């Protein structure tokens, strides 16, 4: 169980590092260049969160499943 949890955290962390540069660019340009608050901040944050969890579940599971199917 602890091993499963550790693996899960690693997967979430790797996905975060994949998505982070893109989030940084979007937020940076929004704040420094456009200089207007986001139109729907909560909705957007929720969307990013869904994408993050979705990638973690979908792609990492696919890798795992494809390997075990071999």
């Amino acid at each position, binding site marked *: 169980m602890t091993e499963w949890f550790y693996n899960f955290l690693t997967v979430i962390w790797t996905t975060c*590092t994949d998505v982070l540069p893109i989030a940084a660019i979007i937020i940076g*340009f929004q704040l420094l*260049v456009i200089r207007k608050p986001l139109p729907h901040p909560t909705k957007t944050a929720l969307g990013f969160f*869904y*994408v993050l969890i*979705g990638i973690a579940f979908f792609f990492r599971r696919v890798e795992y499943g494809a390997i*075990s199917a071999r």
Partner: protein
Amino acid sequence: MSFFKHPFVKQLGSSFLDLAPILAVVIVFQIWVIKQPIPDLGNLIMGTVFVVLGLTLFIQGLELGLFPIGESMAYAFAKKGSVAWLLTFAFCLGFGTTVAEPALIAVANEAANIAAKGKLISADLQAKAGYAMGLRLSVALSVGFAIMVGVLRIIKGWPLHYLIICGYAAVLIITPFAPKEIIGIAYDSGGVTTSTITVPLVTALGIGLATAIKGRNPMIDGFGLIAFASLTPIVFVMAYGILR
């Protein structure tokens, strides 16, 4: 609202339908071709549940977060009227989404290993890391360049096929001069880069811009950024092979 009409449940159902053909292929081959029971049925079922859930969340997240923000930023830039900032943003978006792309990192490391085995570079860790980083940077630069030129095309209203024809002409011209070992990697790198997050974000940017700028049609001018972004890496990676 009944349970089955809830948008999330509907999306779950359609995600499952999207994945059903893949599942069917695996099961059919396992039973009729390999003729063995599925090794770990519990694992397969768990995996399928996670994949359906993941796909559902991903699509919901795109519709909730990435598509609206891509379009709203395109509107904001168009209203601001600063072409220079828009082009800078386009370049950063292309570069940033590509440089951290996991598939590209994996392919670049593999290419460095093969290059070391083929005595193209020395086999020490530093040389390999340098080679892999060089590949990643050339691809990221090329995607940044492609999104930038593609956005400029939307602003100016140039026809897409001129860009594509010029790009493939460049590929044809540069191929004979490139080292043989890099040609395959170069041609493949275009497909590796157009990733899960780049595609929806960049598409939203293009469509948002084409909608916001007067005289542009989103159907005609909004698409095509991805096509160009999967072409330029071929040229840039071969150039890296020549110049290195």
